[in-house]
């Protein structure tokens, strides 16, 4: 079950938090930490590395505790069970104390050496800098083609011109993270969600490495789910502040069908002597369509009720962004 969020985000004492979710990545923990610390060797500010163990069944957590014992800047968070990448990332974001947060994959496929470049880009006045994997080291048919198709559709539907939505290597301003809440499997839609709250977004080419240890946790069946989730997200973000309009739009085809059947019923009745069945079919169809349209409008009203109940916390007034 979901828990109520408390506020572990208190106290921003650091400049940077690097968040990496880990799921069965025992062999990758030590090299990952080493790479990150090395990449941030010349970083002028204070930083922390947050490793989120997403209910791994191997000894990932033991490696994390070892790494954090060796360096106080490395913090570990163990989740109660495997909750998936989105929730694991949220756990990391919730516990991050940095004014800037960088997320990356725990499987060493992202290169921490790109972090300084992302931070530099962020300094130019962006709220979100997305990594764009160059020369992806993944299987062509199983990973690259579905990803290419999915990214095209995401760009088309959301209007956010980010080439590579699936790349985990991203840099965020804390401001932005406080405004978006990820759930289900929405980490792929971070650019779209960020755009919907008015964030300034850009992308930057980053390196990509082949997997060294462990198994990939993706498959082609995800692409279909991603598309369904995307459509859902599109509908929600479009209509979340005025659901009645959304459901009204859905009801239009039903109303049109009802009108069409009514006309057909009238025509059928005037043109020829209808039998009993003929007298029923068209008016019946018209009634069903009208009923469905009415029902959809009622659903829109229910949504308005839900929205109103949450209005205070839904943060619907778009708070202005700090001018930098």
């Amino acid at each position, binding site marked *: 079950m979901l828990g109520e969020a408390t506020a572990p985000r208190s106290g921003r004492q650091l400049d940077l938090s690097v968040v990496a979710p880990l799921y069965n990545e025992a062999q990758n923990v030590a090299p990952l930490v080493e790479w990150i610390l090395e990449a941030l060797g010349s970083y002028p500010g204070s930083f922390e590395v947050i490793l989120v163990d997403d209910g791994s069944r191997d000894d990932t957590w033991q490696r994390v505790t070892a790494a954090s014992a060796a360096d*106080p800047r490395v913090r570990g968070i163990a989740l109660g069970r495997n909750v998936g990448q989105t929730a694991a990332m949220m756990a990391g974001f919730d516990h991050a104390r940095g004014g800037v947060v960088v997320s990356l994959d725990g499987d060493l496929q992202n290169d921490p050496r790109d972090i300084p470049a992302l931070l530099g880009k962020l300094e130019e006045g962006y709220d979100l800098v997305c990594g764009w994997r160059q020369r992806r080291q993944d299987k062509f048919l199983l990973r690259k083609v579905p990803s290419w198709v999915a990214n095209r559709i995401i760009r088309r539907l959301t209007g956010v011109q980010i080439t590579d939505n699936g790349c985990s290597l991203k840099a965020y301003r804390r401001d932005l993270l406080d405004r978006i809440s990820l759930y*289900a499997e929405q980490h792929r839609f971070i650019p779209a969600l960020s755009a919907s709250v008015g964030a300034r977004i850009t992308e930057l080419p980053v390196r990509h490495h082949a997997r060294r240890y462990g198994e990939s946790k993706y498959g082609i069946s995800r692409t279909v789910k991603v598309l369904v989730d995307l459509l859902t997200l599109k509908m929600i973000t479009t209509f979340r502040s005025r*659901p009645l309009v959304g459901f009204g739009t859905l009801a239009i085809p039903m109303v049109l069908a009802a009108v069409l059947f009514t006309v057909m019923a009238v025509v059928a009745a005037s043109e020829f002597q209808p039998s009993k069945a*003929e007298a029923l079919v068209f008016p019946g*169809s018209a009634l069903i369509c009208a009923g469905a349209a009415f029902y959809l409008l009622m659903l829109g009203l229910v949504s308005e009720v*839900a929205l109103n109940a949450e209005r205070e916390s839904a943060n619907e007034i778009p708070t202005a962004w700090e001018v930098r």
Partner: protein
Amino acid sequence: MGQGALMEPTLQPSRAGADARFVSVVVPVVERADDLTELYRSFSAALDGQGEEHEFVFVFDGGFAPPAELLALSQQRESVRLLRFARTFGETAALRLGIERSRGDVILTLPAYFQVTPEGVTTLIAALTDETDLVVANRSPRIDSWLNRVQSVAFNRMIAGVTDRPFHDIACGVRVMRRSVAEGLPLYGDLHRFIPALALREGYRVAEVAVPQHPGNARTRLYGPGVYARRLLDIAAFFFLAKFTEKPLRFFGLVGSGFFAAGAITSLVLLVSRLQGQGIANRPLLLLAVLLLALGVQLMGLGLVGEIIVHLRAPHRRAYRVRERTNSGGPGPHPTGSGPARSTSSGQA
């Protein structure tokens, strides 16, 4: 909730030391009750025998009154407390009230009838070690009638299909858990039957321990058809809760698109016959096609309403529970990962 308590418990810190644990026995008196005084005496004696410090909290649902003997006992002893609902609220509510008003760091839930032997309960408590957060009894060997055994096996088999792990006796009313677990479970409706599965979903470590069934539990119990129907609905509710609470449109969309596809195919058949010159005004099949299409759209609309509600709640909810942290250094209550550090407290929607 209008719960009229017979006796208000006096809240006081009762823990002797950090190591000594205090067991609160929560007894929901609902639906069926044996001689409660005898129940109290035998289980209390068994706990005393193991040197477990304990209290008993009886929660009487509407329609049940505490027997005079137990009432007298509760006036004599502080470790026997009686609470009473003003009207019927059911077992889940009774458990929640009992947990809330109890003081122990270990909660033992016990049915108001002899389900397992008192000695079995002590083995159950002993099984709650550092490695486990919740232990549920598995009545074994079972000595009741084959009919009840078949029912129980069928129920558990069906549930096994929707839980993360199969249980042998998930609905057994005898369970031991830490207070943090008991307070973190999303208990509402009739979900008490799924407590071990809920705890597992929350990421707690759950164990099953074989406990001998009490001879008094051996006689055949027959239920009306309504009870079986409600059990099936309970399983369906749990299934939905477990799989689709974060993405309702996946469920409604799937069912809805099934209807929509059936309607589309039917319409296509009609269209073909119309193009072949056959009239459709006298075809009741048209009604079916339109009805299926409309149903499909309606179901997807319902899913969308669900999605909107989930989306609106998202800023306040977290799908994860933190078990442990290292180098947290923050304001958290557990600076080093020594115990279960909760950064989220589970509530219910």
